[in-house]
């Protein structure tokens, strides 16, 4: 029983990180129908920013975190502006390939600047884990869970109630109609990238606290996992990304505990395939229906 709960807690830990990152994929997809493959590499940008700020410049960690959030937002917004916006009217496949190209560019530039040798991540919290009988909860796990849930609740509130959030939903449903309402679609898209990348910056912090080695390909694995989480939950649906993230994290972690570590990815992809076979739009996704 202790094994089950410990693995469940681990699953919730990684799951909340996947969920945070998945939100960026799903929000961007919802609004420009683009899988932003460079989204995972935003995590890497955030991580190296922290390494530079803390290790090289000796800044306070809190200040460094703030700078890394700003850096990620800046990268996301500039990438959209330079790489995706000129292609908005082109076939989807062009922007998809561009997204892969941007991802490679970011990784290789990082490789040039920082070399492939992993750098230690400087931010750690050293607080004794909480112990309930045989169940252990590390402080990092607790922090990760609380921070993620708070951010998701805030995001949901923003999207549902605020004027800016409503304009995001309107643009994602019907860009032309949103334009006729007076919504500046370019601003809305920029805002969506900014929000998604800010969440990725926090995701990067939480991920690196769990796996504290920063390398140029740092973002690939969590990026792919989070993308799968977004698809599993129903891409374009914000609650779907959260659900998908937690399901993925928990499934992965339970497989590691009960079957074997090597099998965990197979189980994750297996779940994805089965869900997509029965619900092609994802768990919370809705098929496109239109009334004439």
């Amino acid at each position, binding site marked *: 029983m202790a094994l089950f709960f410990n693995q469940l807690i681990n699953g919730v830990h990684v799951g909340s990180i996947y969920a945070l990152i998945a939100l960026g994929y799903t929000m961007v997809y919802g609004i420009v129908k683009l899988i932003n493959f460079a989204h995972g590499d935003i995590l890497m940008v955030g991580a190296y920013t922290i390494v530079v700020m803390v290790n090289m410049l000796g800044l306070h960690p809190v200040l460094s975190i703030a700078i890394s959030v700003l850096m990620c937002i800046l990268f996301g917004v500039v990438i959209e502006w330079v790489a995706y916006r000129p292609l908005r009217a082109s076939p989807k496949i062009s922007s998809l390939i561009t997204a892969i190209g941007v991802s490679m560019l970011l990784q290789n530039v990082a490789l040039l600047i920082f070399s492939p040798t992993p750098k230690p991540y400087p931010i750690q919290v050293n607080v004794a884990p909480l112990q309930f009988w045989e169940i252990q909860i590390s402080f990092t796990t607790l922090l990760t869970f609380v921070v993620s849930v708070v951010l998701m609740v805030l995001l949901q509130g923003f999207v549902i109630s605020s004027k800016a959030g409503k304009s995001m939903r*309107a643009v994602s449903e019907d860009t*032309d109609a949103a*334009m006729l309402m*007076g*919504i500046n679609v370019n601003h809305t898209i920029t805002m969506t990238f900014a929000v998604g990348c800010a969440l990725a910056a926090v995701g990067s912090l939480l991920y690196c606290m769990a796996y504290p080695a920063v390398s140029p390909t740092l973002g690939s694995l969590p990026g792919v996992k989070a993308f799968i989480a977004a698809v599993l939950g129903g891409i374009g649906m914000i609650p779907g990304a959260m659900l998908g993230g937690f399901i993925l994290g928990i499934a992965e972690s339970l497989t590691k505990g009960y079957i074997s570590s090597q099998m965990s990815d197979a189980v994750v992809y297996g779940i994805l395939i089965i869900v997509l076979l029965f619900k092609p739009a994802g768990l919370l996704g809705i098929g496109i229906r239109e009334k004439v």
Partner: protein
Amino acid sequence: MLKISNMNLFYGAIHALHDITFHVNEGEIVTLIGANGAGKTSILNAVSAIVPYKEGEVQFNGESITKVPAYQLIYRGLAHVPEGRRVFARMSVKENLEMGAFSRKDIKGIHADAERVYQHFPRLKERRSQHAGTLSGGEQQMLAIGRALMSNPKLLMMDEPSMGLSPILVSEIFSIVREINKEGTTVLLVEQNAHMALSVANRGYVLETGRIVLEGTAQALLNNDDVKKAYLGTA
């Protein structure tokens, strides 16, 4: 109020609109009628800057709006009910109306206009917390019109409001168009249902394959033999 001069529009190599010139005076209901594919929707989309046009000028309230981006037009008082309603299906009726008032900041005025919309369309009030995607076609049309009215427009452009609706709903919608006009909103109405459109309009223009071939008062067009033969089915 609205003046379109020598508008030419191309879709790739296809010359869709030829030298379109017409105007709408303040307080009028003007209708553009014509068969499917004649270019009616293209004209509205070009005026709204959703579709770019190659030549020509559009003036609204005496100012050129040829280079104004689409999202700014509603701030100048130009609202557009697009073809096929285009309501936000996954947003509630109330939220759709809120989006219609996106361009405004006067909360009191927005509330007053929401009440006005609910008075025109009591059914929307009953369904205000329902998702727009769950409404019937007629209700969606009402919502699309209501949403456009929420911006308190000077000129309301409507694209085929009768499309796909039952005859009872069609006359209901058209009587509301007349009411809206009486309340001081100028209306530019694009319709395939020529009889209905001409019965509410002051003036009309007839479009054929991207050209304006006939214009006149609604009464004159209703009595015109060519119009009767081609669009009214009574010769």
